[in-house]
């Protein structure tokens, strides 16, 4: 394998008793949009801050084109960053904020002017040079911050939840801009978020963080279709989990048995397991089909309808399995059953065998 462009090599960071990141290992290609996705406190920012040089790792290394950057101080790393909080220099105008990285590099005036203009054009804030940051909205401030981070053409851009303080509509608007800017500039981006939709919308690949470790790395569709762990399955997309135990295991497939003895067969199994071990069946609601008859190959379960909620494009049913586990099932608008289903109906949920996943618990 050739040397990766950016390599995060076994980064571990300990704060006193707290292990913030533990052996984070990741290779990023040049020009890639990589997102760190995970709940708050999972070590995403810490990894980014080590890249930025604000913190030193307790162990591990970070290389760009095979050369370690850890001994280079922040101000010489030539990396761009947009922060979660607004970090424009409040005493400088928008134009001077964007010019700042060029001024500290002692660039000539005409070059500075040209680059500031180009950077502001890139974030669609032409003509805002003389505005003070305090007179701008949060979304505008973050766009100026983006211009400031890109004006010196850094090869790598870090973004730590830059949109988390903005409302949903504005967030989507700027996400779109970020995508465009990524395509126009070809800069390698490392983006941190806890919002799965944002991650899916923006990224080439996503690294799922949990408790300081990366659980899985992959494209959005890969993670959605093939979650490696319960955590990933739970974090990306909606899913239902039904707890039971492994009845039998053959190769990468398993049969699961539930509390009342009901079994389902031939479920793709993640991780290794033996018969008798506690396990969970995971189903995506949109891949569950509701029917009056059980399905073939044991890929189905009987359920009792408890409640129905009409939500416009679908009707969501609250259902219960024979052993009492709750489950929600969606019926798209116009589904033949949607009009006739009633509380207390006994029906079956069915799925294609590939759509279910079994995770060993423990």
């Amino acid at each position: 394998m050739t040397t990766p462009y950016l390599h995060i090599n076994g980064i571990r960071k300990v704060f006193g008793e707290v292990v913030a990141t533990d052996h984070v290992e990741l290779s990023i290609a040049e020009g890639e949009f990589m997102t760190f996705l995970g709940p708050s406190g999972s070590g995403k920012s810490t990894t980014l801050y080590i890249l930025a040089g604000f913190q030193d790792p307790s162990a591990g290394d970070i290389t760009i084109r095979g050369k370690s950057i850890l001994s280079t101080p922040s101000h010489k790393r030539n990396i761009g960053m947009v922060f979660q909080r607004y970090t424009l220099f409040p005493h400088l105008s928008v134009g001077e904020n964007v010019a700042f990285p060029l001024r500290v590099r002692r660039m000539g005036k005409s070059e500075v002017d040209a680059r500031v203009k180009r950077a502001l054009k890139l974030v669609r804030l032409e003509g805002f040079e003389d505005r003070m940051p305090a007179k701008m909205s949060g979304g505008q401030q973050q766009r100026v911050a983006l211009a400031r981070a890109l004006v010196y053409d850094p090869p790598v851009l870090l973004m730590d939840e830059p949109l988390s303080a903005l409302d949903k509509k504005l967030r989507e608007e700027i996400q779109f801009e970020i995508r465009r800017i990524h395509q126009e500039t070809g800069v390698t981006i490392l983006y941190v978020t806890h919002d799965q939709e944002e991650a899916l919308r923006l990224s080439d690949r996503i690294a799922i963080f949990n408790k300081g470790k990366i659980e899985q790395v992959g494209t959005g569709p890969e993670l959605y279709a093939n979650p490696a762990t319960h955590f990933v399955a739970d974090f990306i997309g909606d899913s239902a989990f039904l707890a039971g135990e492994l009845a039998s295991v053959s190769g990468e497939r398993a049969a699961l048995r539930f509390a009342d003895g009901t079994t389902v067969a031939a479920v793709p199994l993640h991780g290794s397991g033996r018969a008798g071990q506690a396990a969970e069946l995971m189903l995506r609601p949109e891949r569950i089909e509701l029917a009056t008859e059980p399905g073939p190959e044991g890929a189905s379960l009987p359920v009792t309808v408890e409640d129905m909620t009409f939500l416009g494009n679908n009707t969501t049913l609250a259902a219960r399995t024979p052993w009492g586990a709750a489950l929600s099932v969606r019926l798209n608008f116009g589904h033949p059953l949607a009009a006739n289903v009633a509380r207390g109906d006994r029906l079956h949920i069915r799925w294609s065998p590939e759509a279910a996943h079994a995770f060993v618990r423990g």
Partner: protein
Amino acid sequence: MSITLAPKRRGSGLGLAMPAILLLLAFFVVPVALLLLRSVTEPEPGLHNYRTLIGSATYAKVFFNTFFVAGVVTLVTVLVAFPVAWALAIMPQRWASVIFAVILLSMWTNLLARTYAWMVLLQQTGLINRSLMALGIIDQPLQLTNNLIGVTIGMVYIMLPFMILPLLGVIRKIDPAILQAAALCGASKGQALFRVLLPLAAPGIASGGLMVFVMSLGYFVTPALLGGTANMMLAEMIAQQVQSLVNWGMGGAAAFILLIVTLGLYAVQLRFFEPKPEVR
């Protein structure tokens, strides 16, 4: 002692404020007015006291000294207070509180006692000179009292809390992420200091500096004890005029000029450094 203007309120706050206004009138405005009156009536009516003060070389030297010493003290105080305030702002809160308490305690310790303590430390046979000689850094004791050095050391020490407090106020408000942003933008520590930190701390430097400067202009005890006769300051001269020469006219005129200068400086500060209401 910070001078803050009461927030402007609509309507009838005046009735409630009456006792305070009367108190101010009785204890501040009336004495100042009397002094002003004496300065233009004693020993005979007219502006001759002011003419003498402004016209004579001796008094001009006193004015120059006063401003010079106050200027030096303010500058040195800023230079010492800035790193202290910075350290207090970034150190763990618990330690900062302890150090802060020590600073406040020193503020409440008797001024005269503290100035005498410096005299003892700074004199020819004092601890500082003896230590330096013992260490072989100097062969002859340094002249540290009865001159500008003594006044500066003694006054800077007394003024420090008045500078640290406003500085701490502005520095605490600076988001550390702004300095991280500056670093990633390529700013070295020095560039971050001069291009970001100092400009953001400017209002604190201005208000603390003004307070220190104004207080220094009118200081008496420290210059009298640690300064030499060569650099007499205005307050010493006023004391001399009133106590030794019983010349209330001259003393009043000097005090009044000092007051006008002070108010002028305060107006400048209000005009340029008062934080404007934030627009979001």
